[in-house]
């Protein structure tokens, strides 16, 4: 019962902030609403019995990546203070697409049996690490995949650095890429 009340509060915040992302006129407010969405999603993860995922969500997404996003928005936009119009020609197609997708997902969610039990532990640190890295179990787990992903991020970082060398003024994307790589590395450890 208590878990359900918390869930409703967090869900309302998450959905409301997600709507704000679309409705806010200034991109800075949109970014901040996204931070709020991520924080409440982290709360829901914790409520579902996987505190590790929730905390990583706070640390990596709300803390590091959204901080960089706000950084980029402020570099590009805050000085000029321009306001984009909410609707233009293309937004009709976008609106139809979004509504269709929402309908599909809602339909799928209604059909899926969802068990909500706050007491069972689904994503503790131990469970997550053994699922990802335990090579002794059947097969190598996701270990190789994880390493390949790290390599991919590293190469993308290198590519970003090379591109930034040719065209000055896109330092922020380099930092974003390196930040992601390092965050991955941290999780890996």
């Amino acid at each position, binding site marked *: 019962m208590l878990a359900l009340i918390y869930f409703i509060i967090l869900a309302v915040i998450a959905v409301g902030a997600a709507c704000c992302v679309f409705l806010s006129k200034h991109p800075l407010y949109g970014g901040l609403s996204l931070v709020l969405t991520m924080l409440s999603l982290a709360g829901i993860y914790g409520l579902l019995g996987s505190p*590790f995922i929730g*905390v990583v969500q706070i*640390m990596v997404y709300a803390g590091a990546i959204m*901080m960089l996003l706000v950084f980029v928005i*402020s570099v590009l936009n805050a000085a000029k203070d321009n306001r984009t119009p909410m609707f233009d020609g293309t937004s009709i197609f976008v609106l139809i697409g979004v509504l269709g997708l929402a309908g599909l997902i809602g339909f799928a969610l209604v059909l899926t049996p969802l068990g909500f039990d706050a007491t069972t532990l689904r994503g503790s640190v131990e469970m997550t690490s053994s699922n990802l890295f335990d090579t002794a179990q059947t097969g190598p787990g996701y270990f190789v995949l994880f390493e390949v992903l790290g390599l991919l991020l590293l190469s993308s970082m290198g590519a970003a650095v090379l591109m930034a060398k040719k065209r000055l003024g896109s330092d922020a994307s380099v930092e974003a890429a390196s930040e992601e790589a*390092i965050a991955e590395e*941290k999780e890996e*450890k």
Partner: protein
Amino acid sequence: MDIIESKTWVEWLITIAKFGFCFVPVLYILLLIPMERRGAGFMQDRQGPNRSYIKVPYFGKVRLFGYVQNMCDGTKLFFKEMFAPKGAKKFLYYVAPAIPFAIVFLSPCVIPWFGPMVFEWGGKVVRIAGPIVDSEVGILLLFGFSSLSAYGAVLAGLSSRSKYSYLGSLRTTAMTISYEVCQGLSMMGLLVLAGSFSLTDIVSWQEHHVWGIVAQPVAFFCFLIATIAETGRAPFDVAEGEPELVAGYHTEYGAMQFGLFYMGEYSHICISSLLVATLFLGGYSVPFVTTETIQAHMGGSLAILCWVLAFFALAFLHMIYRYSRKLRASAQSNKMEILQEYKLYKGIGWIAAFVLVCAGIASWMLYNPQVTVVNGVAVNTLGAALGTALIHLLVLLVKSVFFCWVWIWVRWTLPRFRYDHVMHLGWKIILNIAILNLVVTAVVAKLMGGN
């Protein structure tokens, strides 16, 4: 939910009382501001602010060694006008100072203030964990909060529509992110050794093996530097450096809005020093003595605690007597007032020393609770458990106050770094040392057959 039936009322009382620890960083502000001012005075061979006083009728002026200055500052900040510059984004401008200050109340939740209390009550064995939230991801939660508190500075800079604030907030963003990476990676070696993200487990590992500073000396220094940088104080205060950016991200703020930033900074120091003490200095554990020994000789331990406090009272008295001797010989115009104030301190000091010595003797002679063992776990009486918690808490506070002094020491000793130097130090030196340390630690731990 059947939580309520499964707990006795004492457990509920202690669990709720533990929420009081949320206010510890705010209380530390009261300690840290005079400490910073008088400490700066000490470093620069001057007095520091100690002139403000409270006038007590029929007695005279009480100055409390400059502590009254806090109240004057607070009163001033509270009664000044709140304002926003023209063209500022009003909502963000008013919300921004509250973010770091709100995070301050959340962060202490995961710090273990004392070892797990295990005691018997009403025929049941009750176990109460040290931190308010005994989470298995405690340290990560703390880092998450710490990274969120940087939003305050960023939003303040972006919303106040001033170039200096704006540049300050950009610098804060860059510095927070780069030093957070260093902080996290330098701490990972210790986590590999302890094999847990839970701060309680880390402290108990240190209690039963060695302190983190012995096991991971390189990581300790990396972590300390990164944490000092994270609090954004000199020598790393590029985000609010006076010669370049007026006051950085809070240039446009005044009154209590500025006060919230100010208090947020000092509380951040408190939490960081608690974190360093917990990770690398054994947290609540008493040096060279295990918790089991303390609990087995509860009366003696409490007596030693009382006598140590009595020793501090006597040292305080010694200081007061020396000051008054100097003052009598001097030609200061207000020396009678000050001597009158010192009489009060002498009285309090002697009473405290006497009471503490007596309490120590009484607990030595009279208090000797029994420890029973249930399923291999030592179970105490409620009094012994509370006594152990008190000793642990005081030990942790002493360690963290020492690190607070390190913060002040560093600030008033080193000159400010230039912005590119700070970035160079973070990304090219500390980060590499931290990664190297982590790899070496992991290999050694694997070879030694640890976790």
